[in-house]
């Protein structure tokens, strides 16, 4: 992957506590899996930045290499890759997602 693309992705992740790389936007998801994660984050009460990969082919391709993860959506919290649709939904259902989303004290 090009360094500049890597840096762009890193910059997005560094500058936003909670970032969802998705197909479409949070207001208009264009894929069922992306829509599921928007709904999960909404129910969890999380503010998040959406990044529409359909509008940026570089990021759409690059984000898959970035985390060695071939599918979208991808959720990042405070710089760390949390998972795709199945993992994040399961964390939510098990009640584990709040701890990941909420900033740690101190």
């Amino acid at each position: 992957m090009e360094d500049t693309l890597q840096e762009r992705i890193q910059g997005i992740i560094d500058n936003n506590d909670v970032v969802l790389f998705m197909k479409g936007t949070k207001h208009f998801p264009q894929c069922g899996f992306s829509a599921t994660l928007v709904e999960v984050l909404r129910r969890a009460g999380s503010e998040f930045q959406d990044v529409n990969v359909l509008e940026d082919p570089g990021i759409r391709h690059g984000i898959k290499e970035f985390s060695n993860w071939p599918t979208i959506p991808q959720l990042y919290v405070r710089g760390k890759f949390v998972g795709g649709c199945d993992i994040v939904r399961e964390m939510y259902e098990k009640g584990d997602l709040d701890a990941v989303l909420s900033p740690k004290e101190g």
Partner: protein
Amino acid sequence: MVEAEDLEQRIRQGVGDVSHIVVNDLTGTKDHWEALIVSEAFSGKSPIEQHQMVYAALGELMAGPVHALALKTYSPESWAKQEG
């Protein structure tokens, strides 16, 4: 398009130690799939690592023929708890 048998075989070979696997065609179009996989190879691995192992096993299939793949992965221990 890809056949369920191909997916199952790739996962069995790539992940290894698969004791239980179910592959379902979600849409009847052979490109949207779900897979439930129980493997000793998942023991001690995070969910992210477990899914990465499955994606690695499927390799180039993930870059085209497989448009969507919903995954449930378990170690034998977590599968036993799941079955309750």
